[in-house]
């Protein structure tokens, strides 16, 4: 394992036992993710992209193969609080204010109150939500709630951000805006980001590496380098290189789908 490798999967397998028999969610996953990369998992539903993210987060246990996170098992990494996780929905606790929600992981981790306040303020600023600390989640729009949930996942300064279709439920305009903000955030914090999506433009716009997955059994079809450089703006989506990569991803998805027939 190279020094700057954060996640390493070798021949990873996961089979769910269900009432309708076993479901092969992941099969033969080989993947390496390096420090500071922005990696997207893309694929149709049922391709195991969320499951793979959950395995990295130790929310699911693999049934075969090997996976290391920061050179240890996912469980050890989770116990060391190696990552912040952002769910499909904001999953804010409705009885806590926005500030209280960002404070939640800090409280669980036993960070003293005086430090918590500074961290809440800093992370709200990071997602442009300063001034909303005392508001309750229902008083915020969907996009703002998701930003608050990103601030919550960053509050304890993990090295890695795992994001499961965080903007999937938002409209196009909000999504574009949040994508730009996320890239800024990534440039500022230099964190490793693993990002699950089913949107091709989103994956190409954000990532340094795109993992194209295909379903039944869930497996990696192709890994595409996304060399669009730093400091991307939304305009980049009009450039030939962007269109070329997007085309490559689309072809990959098509071929991945074709395999099963």
């Amino acid at each position: 394992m190279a020094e700057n490798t954060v996640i390493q999967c070798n021949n990873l397998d996961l089979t769910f036992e269900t009432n309708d028999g076993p479901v092969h969610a992941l099969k033969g996953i080989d993947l390496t993710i390096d420090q500071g990369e922005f990696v997207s998992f893309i694929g149709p539903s049922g391709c195991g992209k969320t499951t793979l993210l959950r395995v990295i987060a130790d929310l699911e246990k693999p049934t075969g193969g090997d996976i290391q996170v920061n050179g240890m098992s996912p469980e050890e990494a989770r116990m060391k609080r190696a990552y912040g996780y952002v769910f499909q929905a904001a999953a804010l606790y409705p009885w806590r204010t926005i500030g209280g929600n960002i404070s939640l992981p800090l409280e669980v981790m036993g960070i003293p109150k005086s430090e918590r306040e500074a961290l809440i303020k800093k992370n709200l600023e990071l997602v442009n939500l300063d001034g909303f600390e005392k508001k309750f989640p229902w008083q915020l729009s969907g996009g703002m709630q998701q930003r608050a949930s990103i601030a919550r996942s960053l509050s304890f300064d993990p090295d890695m951000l795992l994001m499961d279709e965080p903007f999937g439920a938002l409209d196009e305009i909000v999504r574009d805006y949040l994508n730009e903000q996320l890239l800024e955030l990534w440039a500022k914090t230099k964190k490793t980001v693993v990002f699950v999506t089913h949107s091709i433009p989103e994956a190409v716009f954000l990532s340094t590496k795109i993992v194209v997955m295909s379903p039944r059994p869930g497996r990696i079809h192709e890994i595409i380098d996304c060399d669009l450089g730093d400091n991307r703006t939304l305009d980049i989506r009009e450039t030939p290189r962007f269109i070329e990569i997007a085309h490559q991803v689309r072809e990959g998805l098509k071929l991945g789908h074709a395999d099963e027939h």
Partner: protein
Amino acid sequence: MPMSIKREGFAAILHDRLIPIGTVLLAIFALWYVFTVVLNAPFERDQAERAGVEISTSELISKTMAQKRPILPAPHQVAVEIWETTVEKKITSKRSLIYHTWVTLSSTLLGFALGTGLGILLAVGIVHSKVLDKSLMPWIITSQTIPILAIAPMVIVVLNAIGISGLLPKAIISMYLSFFPVAVGMVKGLRSPEVMHLDLMRTYNANRSQVFWKLRWPASVPFLFTSMKVAVAISLVGAIVGELPTGASAGLGARLLSGSYYGQTIQIWSALIAAAVLAALLVMVIDLIGRSVTRRMGVVA
């Protein structure tokens, strides 16, 4: 299309609350008076026949509402009785309805507190342990299938034998009834957090007690108050039932019992009304506390 008018302030209360509630109340009173006349009339006819006098309808009706021991007392007779035993009697008097209500209220409140505590404890155990879930739940349900009237005397006798008497045995009967809705409601409440909210705690490597205090407990608060509203009302029932087998000398149950011994139906009905008013007040208090707590927890009322 009918226009909907937005009313505010007193007009809104009048329209949304007072008019509908008042209408129902008037209907109940009207029906009550009808039954008073119908049920008490045979006695008056009988009396008239024995005395060998003719009785006019208007005379009959007014007499049915002025009997000393009517089968069904008229509302105003009950109202007068309540007035006389509350306002016109000293609170320390054995004939004061307020005194008797207080006696019942004290064991209701103690039983309700014990029952709520027991219900919460059972729910916490059931949610956190599969063994308790499998072993306790059937017993909890069985406990409620046994009529309280059958258990109450035994509880009183057994506790008396070990030297416990007075407030506590009644409170225990009331606890026996009131723990049930709290236990069932809180099991549901403590299990109410979404999977995502639980997963989130897992990603923070939170321990069980953190998951409980920061997630399960706050999530269950609305369930707690809903079940407490049911529990407080049946706590009162438990306290009254607890007063019956002892031949207790004080309390609403004692009033009901002595009223039935001596055929004092007016006394029985005024004790019943007192119990109903008390139950309504208790439920309202719990509701108000519940509302203010959930409002502070960011819930839109």
